[in-house]
């Protein structure tokens, strides 16, 4: 059986695409480069929207990227169930595209923060987190200037009530409401994270340990299961 194919999107200004592709390979999958100006998802099993400053973060983080030609394909595919993970700028794009509720605004301390962050996995109930257990504590780097998760009271209540919080900060670094570091859509196939699991997949490089690898092994397994069940 061939390896699961995970699309990695590059917008102008995307920075962590090489790292995401490496993490997919490291977990045993096949990364498929997707270019922002293309209109073809190349039949991938899942899509990773990496971090960076797409389109220079002009106007508002992720606000221009959501209109990229590739997004016109990706948004309906995600609504139809294609697994999508957005980290950092990718999370911001998913919020701008209304695939995820809420928004990400400037950190409470107003500074960019790069640190190895302790987190708690709240939900193992997504195709991206199935290899974790709910309540598991992990350390994964964060690096962002605008990662403070906000939503209006009703949205926030719904996100909590539906169990859509996927990851919470232990020691809130940026003032995110309810310590939220990552959420999913109601269906569970679309996940947004401020932390960077692709920077915690090798002992030699990046943050300490390999706690981020689970996001990649999870999606490879769930993609393969789908193939088997299809």
């Amino acid at each position, binding site marked *: 059986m061939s390896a699961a194919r995970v699309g990695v999107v590059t917008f*102008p200004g995307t920075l*962590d695409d090489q790292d995401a592709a490496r993490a997919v390979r490291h977990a045993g999958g096949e990364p498929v480069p997707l270019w922002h100006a293309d209109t073809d998802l190349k039949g991938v099993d899942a899509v990773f929207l990496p971090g960076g400053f797409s389109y220079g973060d002009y106007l508002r983080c992720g606000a221009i990227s959501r209109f990229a030609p590739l997004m016109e394909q990706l948004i309906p595919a995600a609504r139809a169930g294609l697994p999508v993970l957005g980290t950092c700028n990718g999370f911001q794009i998913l919020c701008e595209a209304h695939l995820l509720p809420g928004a990400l605004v400037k950190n409470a301390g107003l500074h960019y923060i790069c640190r190895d962050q302790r987190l708690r996995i709240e939900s193992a109930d997504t195709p991206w987190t199935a290899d974790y257990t709910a309540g598991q504590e992990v350390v994964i780097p964060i690096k962002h200037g605008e990662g403070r998760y906000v939503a209006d009271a009703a949205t926030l209540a719904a996100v909590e009530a539906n169990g859509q919080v996927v990851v919470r900060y232990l020691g809130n670094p940026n003032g995110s409401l309810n310590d939220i570091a990552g959420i999913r859509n109601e269906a569970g196939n679309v996940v947004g994270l401020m932390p960077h699991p692709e920077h915690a997949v090798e002992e030699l490089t990046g943050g300490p340990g390999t706690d981020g690898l689970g996001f990649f092994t999870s999606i490879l397994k769930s993609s393969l299961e789908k193939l088997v069940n299809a």
Partner: protein
Amino acid sequence: MSALSVDSVQRAEQTPDERLPYAELGMKDDEYQRVKEILGRRPTGSELAIYSVMWSEHCSYKSSKVHLRQFAAKAPKSDALLVGMGENAGVVDIGDGWAATFKIESHNHPSYVEPHQGAATGVGGIVRDIMAMGARPVAVMDSLRFGAADAPDTRRVLPGVVEGISSYGNCLGLPNIGGEVAFDPCYIGNPLVNALCVGLLRKDQIKLATAPGPGNKVVLFGALTGPDGIGGASVLASATFEEESQAKRPSVQVGDPFMEKLLIECCLELFAADVVVGIQDLGAAGVSCATTELAAKGTGGMDVRLDLVPLRDPSLRPEEILMSESQERMMAVVTPDDIDAFMAICAKWDLPATVIGEVTDTGRLVMTWHGETIVDIPPGTAADEGPVYERPYHEPAGQAALNSDDAARLERPTDLRATLLSLLGSPDLSSKEWVTGQYDRYVRGNTVLAQPADAGVLRVSEVMPGATETNRGIALATDGNGRYAKLDPYAGAQLALSEAYRNVAVTGARPLAVTDCLNFGSPEDPEVMWQFAEAVRGLADACKILGVPVTGGNVSFYNQTGSVAIHPTPVIGVLGVLDDVRGRVPSGFTGEGARVVLLGETGEEFGGSAWAHVEHGHLGGLPPAAVLEAERALATVLVEAAAQGMLTGSHDLSDGGLAIALAESCLAHGVGCTVTLPGGDPFTDLFSESAARALVTVRPEAFAVFAALCGRHEVPYAGLGLTGGSSLTVEGVLDVPLDELRTVHEGTLPAIFG
């Protein structure tokens, strides 16, 4: 002259007596006379713009050249050196067909005027130098010096500089893997912002700044040209700060890191497609510098239609276009056959690209403006044949008195625990997390070690598509110590080199090559010039002994406020290579039960020390002796021990001596230690700053072999004790819980900067 007419060559010939504002552009009378002799007439305004920027101190090195020649004359033989001084950056062979290119450059004056943009464009400029060599930039680091940490203006300058580096470097996608932050009142009106970039490339893909082949096209690509930093090169970089700095605000350039990121990816695609004959970045002196340098190093001639330069501000005059320092621009020379492919790649990255001229064999750089010839010069006269000054120099009047004011007279402490905590919490030695936590150190996924490790270490991997994999790594460190250099610039430069060299070696990397950023006051002051001459002589001599050539760098003069110069501050960057990066040695104590070993010899050396500075506000005497043969032996031991897997951790000894090294080693991974001092005077053992020393932790089972290795290379070693526990215990002297150390170490900068 009316607003719309242009000062053409024809007009210059017809109006030989018209007075041009050469003095206002920083040009001396005799320099202007030389331009007239070269051209056989008065220059046009555009020609004057070119000569004034190209002959400025910043671009021509006119005061430093006679001294810098020693770097070549005394250079050690090095098989690793592929491209030496004189290009955009030096290139070094790191094995397996790979090469590394690196350089450090100052952006001091702009960073004082406008800290955010000044520092940001400093990063942008050095990154383009690295791109121009054909490399992928893979990391940056910064060496920063500010006035006293609690001075009001430092609270303006430091956060702005850090934010500028953070916003530009992070958005560019380059990990920031190290550097320095230091404070001293001498930098209050003149902070030092020195930015280093390192790039990787295949050895056979080196690009040079040259324009050969008549008929080849000259392409300007990247950002549009606007009124940024006009006159910046000759006015800002060469002027001393007085009260008028507010008036200079508009001449600082503004950076766009998003554009630079596109430029990086575009250039790499252009290199991969092999459609570039020669390439030059546009930095100081913009189009003037790029056209004259490319033409001078190529076939010798170039025709340029200056009115084709795409403008952000259509009202710009030709003189302004020539001097504009708009960021994120490059110039390439492309064959007519490749021009379509070149343009297609630029279009893919949404980058404007315009053919503005052609290479010729006339030996002249000719520029036209809407049909009128406005420049007609031999390009080499601007690029390479600028004035060279043998500035007078002599030892400063107070130097002897300074040197005789020995730190030995200072009162020694009785409570060494209190001294340790006082030093550890001083701004210079405190944790720099407030600064480095604002930099992305992980992007690109190859960061093996970053701050606060002694050196940044990168894996050489996935630099460009299709390149063969390797286990190699590179290590980089920058160091400088203005206090040492003030006491003795010859030794000070050698000590800065020694420390950077040592910092690379403690990771297990073999030091290969050097880049330098020489920050000094006014070269017109003979006492400053003496400091400069001594520092260069010291550095060149030390490079020869350590076997590491200077590959390039930058001289920054006029770092002074009024007539008061900064401490002479040579900042040295050293690049090293790890044959197998998986064998790198992490910083500090990594686990319990390892043997703590002190390498090197400790003497009573307190001149310029952190103790004298922090506890007594004293600067006098002589700095520690630079012991270069001992540095070399120490590095050999460290590299061999790392390759054989004997070490579990390491840390160099520098400011604050053994005491600070022990404390930092404990804090690195939260592992304590219990040690016994070698037996001399505890104060000297703990706080002396003798050079050529390092602290290592050795696997217990490897200790005998390690001791033999030290013996073979005549490196003194002393087993101090074992790692473990949750406190730093020096038997019979002091005992501090790690929590207390951490609180003291980490609290200082947040308390000042919020």
